[in-house]
């Protein structure tokens, strides 16, 4: 099938994020999604590349077929035509049991190993800003097979080291000692995978699972490798860049604006 791509200017950055994230889903997968762009991504995926994907929301609904876009994972809209409406114990239990293939997550800060901070900026005991906190981010990110992070690309957010390690990347702290080890070593037999992509307003990043390091995978149309480098405060591996991020198609944009988010909640 020939793809009818939109040109820069015909879509907004959030459209591209949602589309790029949707393409991470494989058909038949069980996907944990949070509020906002993640919802757009899984709902779009179900209408394009992964019609048999299952969407699980953290508050306790499974495989809903919402006719109105939920504005939160606790929203009554999530339960519409769901297979199961239960609670947290059900869905987190399935996650721990290894039933979740992919999850979408976000964060305020990320480091070169994919460690994410959603807790505080500054000193933990005396922070400059207190964010909402971990939520299920570290649970999902430690127990799903793959996770995709959706973030804003800023130098201060892509850091050598995050102020607080809320959610585990590819090189983490092993407790009780706190020494830095690979995710594989820290998780041992219960290693199932980890962060597989970071999608920002500028680019898509992936991880070398042996070194644990983030690398640049594709750059969004309209941006350069140099732009991305300038918005990262660690030494970014750009040696593997595959080229441009595949832009949204007109069909995908139509679905996003007229079916998935017809009311203009997350895509005004």
């Amino acid at each position, binding site marked *: 099938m020939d793809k009818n791509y939109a040109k820069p200017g015909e879509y907004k950055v959030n459209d591209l994020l949602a589309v790029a994230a949707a393409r991470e889903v494989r058909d038949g997968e069980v996907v944990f999604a949070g509020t906002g762009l993640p919802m757009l991504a899984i709902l779009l995926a179900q209408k394009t590349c992964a019609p048999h994907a299952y969407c699980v929301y953290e508050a306790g609904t499974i495989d809903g077929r919402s006719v109105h876009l939920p504005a939160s994972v606790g929203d009554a809209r999530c339960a519409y035509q769901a297979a199961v409406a239960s609670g947290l*114990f059900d869905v987190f239990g399935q996650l*721990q049991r290894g039933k979740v293939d992919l999850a979408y997550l976000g964060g305020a800060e990320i480091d070169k190993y994919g460690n994410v901070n959603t807790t505080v900026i500054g000193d933990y005991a005396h922070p400059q800003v207190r964010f909402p906190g971990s939520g*299920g*981010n570290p*649970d999902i990110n430690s*127990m799903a097979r793959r996770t995709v992070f959706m973030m804003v690309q800023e130098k201060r957010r892509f850091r050598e080291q995050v102020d*607080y390690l809320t959610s585990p990347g590819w090189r983490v702290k092993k407790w009780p000692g706190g020494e830095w080890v690979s995710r594989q070593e820290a998780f041992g037999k*219960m290693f199932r995978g980890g962060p597989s992509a970071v999608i920002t307003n500028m680019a898509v990043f992936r991880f070398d699972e042996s070194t644990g390091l983030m690398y640049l995978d594709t750059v969004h149309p309209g941006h350069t490798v140099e732009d991305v480098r300038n918005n990262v405060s660690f030494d970014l591996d750009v040696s593997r860049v595959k080229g441009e991020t595949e832009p949204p198609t007109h069909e995908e944009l139509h679905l996003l604006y007229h079916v998935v988010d017809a009311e*203009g909640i997350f895509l005004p």
Partner: protein
Amino acid sequence: MSKRMSIPEAASLINDGDMITFSGFTIWRRPMALVYELIRQRKQNLHLVEVNSGTHGDMLIGAGCVKVWESCWIGQELFGKLGGNLDRKLREGSILVEDYSHYQMLLRMMAGAQGVPYLPTWASRGTDILNPDYDMLAKAGLRDGSNPKIPRHKFAIVEDQFYEEGTLIHVPAVRPNVCIAHVQQVGEDGTVRVWGQKFADEEAIKAADKVIVIAEEVVPEEYLRREPERNLIPPYLVDVIVEQPWGAHPTGNFGCHEVDGPFMRDFYNKTRTQEGFDAWADEWVFGVPDYEAYLEKLGFNRLQKLRANSAYKYNDSAKRGTR
């Protein structure tokens, strides 16, 4: 021996210093009528332990009712991205915060509900949540065993002996003094029915020593018992019953009403400073004598426009986005 009480009577059962938990999820089905009354009664030194928090928690924190907050999340979702009051109080150093992850908090509540002192999990390995330097209750000297509600450790790291799968995390049980729950229906004796997602209500109610249930409506037991599979909690686990329609406003309630987003956004915007909070509370908490007056102040049409469609279980006609 009726369990029925008024909102002020129910609030008076909560003591300063009590450990409290709540029904609901983020900005959904929170027992707001009682939360307002706790502020009105100027409760002090509350210890909130919540699977997750939201507007209700941030409000109690802004009002200075809370000494310790143990949870994983606080905010107003789309209507205010932070717990603005928690952010301020934490920066000031006037509140103790203990961070766990979401599933860890749930398992803590489940351990309380099931009567064991801890449960094991693989969740959130590798993170600073497990960092002993960030065990704030220990740093405050509160893990010495003198308070029977506070465990001696934030976590334990334990090796699996059965399948040699590595190190698990043991998280300690939570056993709150009181769970305050808002639900759709309760029977006259206390049988509880929750519509839609149950969130962590079952665990929160079962973990608590005392349970206060505020319901949209009190219905005949016989009615609820026609379908016992749909009920969550039996009567003997419920101590107090309050009938308070719309008692979850401004949070949303499956099958009853929508989140009042503008109200929540207004709360968030106005309460980023203490002066702002105090002015907001003067208007919406201290400025009204009770919850009925609060609902009257909101007005019939505002509430009516939030009402759920009975087929969808949510309001399908209010404008939510830009289209």
